[in-house]
């Protein structure tokens, strides 16, 4: 299969810096626990744009969108299944305006939260939900789509299928958080199985995000790379595991510690690097410095 021209161009530029966590950034701006973050695209667009801008200013070359839970199955929990289009279109537009040409916008598509295996959702329903979201994101001006935090390979492949119809490049990223060595998805999928499955479904970039601290991503990245048949690799790691302090989740890892893993990730084959839970613009700035100092002759 031919590589998408945008991905080919990006992958040829050396390590590409993506962004960090959105949820915690929105919470810092007043999003209440349990509130649906995606709705903020409509109710607090200024705050969402602030987060996007903070990542552009930190040096992200690709920023994502506040649309992780923007499929109708997830939005239904907030009684907003009928607002998929406006939530996603606005989400993509907010990031695009914040990027103002300084960064690309790869729009986020998260899991449905339902399990195919238990029969609570069908493949047809999943595909329709992802198609609806992907189309709205494309209409909002996204440069690419990121299917992320997927635990079920079948669901990820259905999402890839739906996302590909937009013609945009598609990143597909799984969450490896299970098994003794934390190298399986919740459903038991290995990096090798994920790489083969995601590539066969037509993903332009494959990867791993969330689920564990950045140290665990180095071997997973290498295994994805080895099985990726030449596809570029996308890594967005957590800042270690959260600890509860005074009733609040805190991540003990510092930005400096986090960014110290960047050279190892690059050696393991990562083409796109960013952060997931526990990371912030400060982390992205630290990763920016690592990437820049590595590319300096």
């Amino acid at each position, binding site marked *: 299969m031919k590589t998408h021209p945008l991905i080919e161009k990006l992958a040829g530029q050396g390590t590409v810096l993506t962004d960090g966590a959105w949820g915690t950034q929105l919470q810092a701006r007043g999003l209440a626990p349990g509130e649906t973050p995606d709705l903020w695209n409509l109710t607090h667009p200024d705050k969402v744009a602030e987060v996007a801008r903070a990542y552009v200013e930190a040096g992200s070359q690709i920023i994502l969108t506040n649309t992780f839970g923007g499929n109708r199955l997830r939005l239904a929990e907030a009684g907003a299944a009928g607002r998929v289009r406006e939530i996603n279109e606005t989400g993509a537009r907010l990031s695009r305006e914040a990027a103002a040409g300084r960064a690309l916008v790869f729009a986020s598509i998260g899991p449905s939260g339902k399990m195919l295996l238990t029969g609570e959702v069908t493949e047809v329903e999943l595909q329709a939900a992802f198609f609806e979201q992907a189309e709205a994101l494309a209409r909002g001006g996204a440069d690419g789509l990121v299917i992320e935090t997927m635990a079920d390979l079948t669901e990820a492949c259905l999402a890839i299928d739906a996302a590909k119809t937009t013609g945009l490049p598609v990143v597909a990223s799984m969450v490896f958080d299970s098994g003794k060595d934390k190298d399986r998805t919740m459903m*038991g999928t290995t990096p090798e199985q994920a790489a083969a499955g995601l590539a066969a479904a037509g993903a332009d970039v494959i990867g791993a995000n969330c689920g564990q601290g950045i140290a665990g991503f180095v071997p997973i990245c290498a295994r994805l790379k080895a099985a990726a048949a030449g596809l570029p690799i996308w890594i967005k790691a957590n800042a270690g595991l959260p600890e*509860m302090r005074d009733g609040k989740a805190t991540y003990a890892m510092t930005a400096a510690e986090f960014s110290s893993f960047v050279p190892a990730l690059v050696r393991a084959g990562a083409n796109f690097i960013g952060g997931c839970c526990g990371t912030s613009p400060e982390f992205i700035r630290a990763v920016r410095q690592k990437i820049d100092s590595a590319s300096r002759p």
Partner: protein
Amino acid sequence: MPDLQTLHDAVVNGDAKSARTITAAALAEGVEPMKLVQEYMMPAMAEVGRRFETNEYFVPELLLAARAMKAALELVRPLLTAQGAQPVGRVAIGTVKGDMHDIGKNLVSAMLEGGGYDIIDLGVNVSPESFVAAVKEKGANIIAMSALLTTTMPSMKITVEALKQAGVRGQVKILIGGAPVTQKYADEIGADGFSESAAGAVAAAKKVVG
């Protein structure tokens, strides 16, 4: 007379149809329902748990096994009830207030049901008041709380406090679980038990209710 070891294997292999057929045949032959549960089904679930711990099994296998167990139990339970046997415990389970994630909660629910517990599924985004009501009005003797988000974990602590306030803390054992939840947190908020995974939920429940 069917070879009862095949019942054990059917549960381990997640073969609900066989589990049900063998159970029906055994009951028709006059095998004691309690014997089926204690000597074949429970050891089968223990084996499933063991395989989960050793990475032979993951969530799909776990779910299928729990379903097979449930299919067999549906035939056995009415007989046990008729004999006056009480369920091992009545669990009110839910994902805590502010948290909409139900996959983990549903898995634990399936495992506990497979383990012979009566389940009251309170759903997601469950308020402390609803947990209290489940104890007062529905006779739950175990509360099982799930949270996927670090931001919703504090709802667990609030629920423990609400149970104390309502004067029913002494009537229930509290189990907690979910991705960010740790034994340390369980100790901190005064929960009685914690399980790292859905597979360990039955063991955790057994530990607290004896």
